[in-house]
């Protein structure tokens, strides 16, 4: 079997969801015969006639229609062309989809796919990481797969869930992350994964930052330090058990997130570790986020705007007092 990219895993998961469940349909800009801006829906319109629709350039209507279809028992998967454009559909996500179950007892099983995060040259409006924004709202499940296997299995789980899911798939991982096979067994939704075992410090991260963190940990291993890495997988719900168990082993915590610092995932993890596990900490917990500016377009600016492996290694050294 030739290797499967993260992007292909997303396509395959949608293909399987369409094949397995007649309630599933796809709706989004250019997702039909064209196969999507990133080709995440390539061939699916042909394979599943009448179930993969091109939508007008109307994010609010796309998500609003998904909500209505979900009330009628369907399982829509909608694609935002870029996560950044979901702000134009924000109202339907946070005020309609997220509130429906609490208000009426009727669940809202929609999946909103957000091609997320920075890539070289993406610039301010094609690079955003919006997981913290959506995680702020009760009623939404927010997934941030960091591996090919998770991209596949978590998307299938997202479709199966009765609650609305914001699926933050990372564009930086689309092409270069590859796997030989698709997973057979998976962790349950809301469970974090120990991506690397260690004893000296814990890095809690998600999405593309997992791979920068692993590179930093490899660098530090050369100096004799063992960094443990927790991949959150879903940022809401947040698996504090796994995080706290790791901090209990290491006593030191660094949170790495690609989104902006103020009120981000890193801030939330640190808030909860300090209030729930203050005694486990040997030193003040640290966080590393993107810089607090819009995402710059020029590759030289962008490559230091987001946390990089070397920046993570540098903060880790400070955390370890070296």
């Amino acid at each position, binding site marked *: 079997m030739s290797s499967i990219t993260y992007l292909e895993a997303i396509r395959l998961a949608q293909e399987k969801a369409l094949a397995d469940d007649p309630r599933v349909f796809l709706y989004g800009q250019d997702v039909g015969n064209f196969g999507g801006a990133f080709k995440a829906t390539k061939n699916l319109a042909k394979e599943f006639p009448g179930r993969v629709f091109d939508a007008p350039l109307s994010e*609010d209507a796309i998500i609003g229609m998904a909500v209505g279809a979900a009330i009628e028992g369907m399982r829509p998967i909608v694609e935002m062309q870029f996560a950044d454009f979901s702000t134009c559909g924000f109202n339907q996500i946070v005020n309609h989809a997220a509130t429906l179950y609490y208000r009426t007892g009727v669940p809202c099983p929609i999946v909103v796919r957000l091609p997320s995060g920075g890539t070289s040259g993406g610039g301010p409006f094609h690079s955003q990481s919006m997981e913290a924004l959506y995680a702020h709202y009760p009623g939404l499940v927010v997934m941030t797969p960091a591996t090919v296997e998770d991209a596949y299995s978590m998307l299938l789980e997202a479709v199966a869930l009765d609650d609305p899911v914001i699926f933050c798939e990372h564009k930086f991982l689309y092409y270069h992350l590859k796997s030989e096979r698709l997973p057979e067994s998976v962790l349950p939704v*809301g469970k974090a994964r120990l991506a690397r075992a260690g004893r000296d410090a814990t890095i809690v991260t998600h999405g593309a930052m997992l791979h920068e963190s692993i590179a930093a940990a490899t660098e530090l291993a050369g100096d004799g330090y063992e960094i443990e890495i927790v991949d959150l997988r879903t940022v809401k719900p947040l698996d504090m058990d796994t995080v706290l168990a790791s901090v209990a082993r290491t006593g030191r915590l660094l949170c790495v997130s690609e989104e902006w610092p103020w009120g981000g995932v890193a801030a939330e993890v640190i808030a909860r570790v300090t209030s729930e596990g203050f005694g486990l900490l040997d030193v003040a917990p640290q966080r590393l986020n993107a810089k607090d500016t819009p995402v710059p377009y020029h590759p030289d600016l962008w490559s230091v705007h987001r946390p990089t492996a070397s920046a993570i290694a540098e903060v880790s050294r400070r955390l370890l007092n070296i």
Partner: protein
Amino acid sequence: MPTFKEDATVSSSEFIKAYRVMLLARVLEEKLASLYRGGMIKGGVFLGRGQEALSVSVGLHLHKGDIFAPLIRDQAGRMAFGDTILDTLRTYLGSQLGPMRGRDGNIHRGRPREGYYAMISHLGAMIPAVSGALLARRMKGETGIVGATCLGDGGTSTGAFHEGLNAAAVEKLPLVLVVANNQYAYSTPNSRQFACLDLVDKAVGYGVAGHKVDATDLEQCLLTLRKAVKAAREGGGPQLVVGDLLRLVGHGEHDDAHYVDPALKSAPVGRDCLLLAEEKIIAKKWASRAETSAWRHEAEEEVNATVDKVRREPGPKPEEDDWMAYSKSEFAEHYAGA
């Protein structure tokens, strides 16, 4: 424009049926206003006085199995679609037994499983939701159904109106979008709301059928909605209905509406559709004044009895709410100190 032949009359029984639902909605809303003044209501009160003829005509032309997403001034349409005095009062008086269990109230009530959608406040948002529901029904192979939703003149200025109506038109969905053009959005007059000559002119821009009606006239409302709903049901695509009328109350019961232009109040658009309908019933000798008074009395008795019942019902208990925004209890976050 649809080409089928219309039956351009309204029978006395249809007219009286509509009138009695309007009357019940009016009586119920008058009670809500007095309960509001007495401090008995949980939350706000926004009434549909003067808009009953248009609203009831929407509800009466929908069947079981259709979808209806009413808005703030649709007490009459809601009741015509099957909502009850009991459910209405349970939300306004904050009974735990109401359809929203204290979690959302009043005009936001609904029973989505029964096609009676529960509006969110954000104006225009129900247009794409009903459209998506209709798309789903089509995918499931259901035909001959209609989805209706209502809006105000102000709501036509939202992005959701534009996106929702356009998307429904692209899919040729059986959507009936009814605009109650009551001349104001809260205090904002139409002159500050839109620059087109008539809201119904928007229909052509979206490629949908447009219908215009004097919404103070019950017979015209019934005929127009009959035609629009039939056209949608038979595959004619979205129908935009614009009814002209005047809001005969404040925006909400907290508002004295001092800003309403007196010239509008004395103009034909400012007439009360309920009084006009009653006059017609009397003039046509479909019923006597004594009978219409008896109908009002009957409605008042029923409303008052239901108020007495609901006031004895328990409110929601904070300690019994599961405080769960997710359908899966494993997804509840546990915050220390909370």
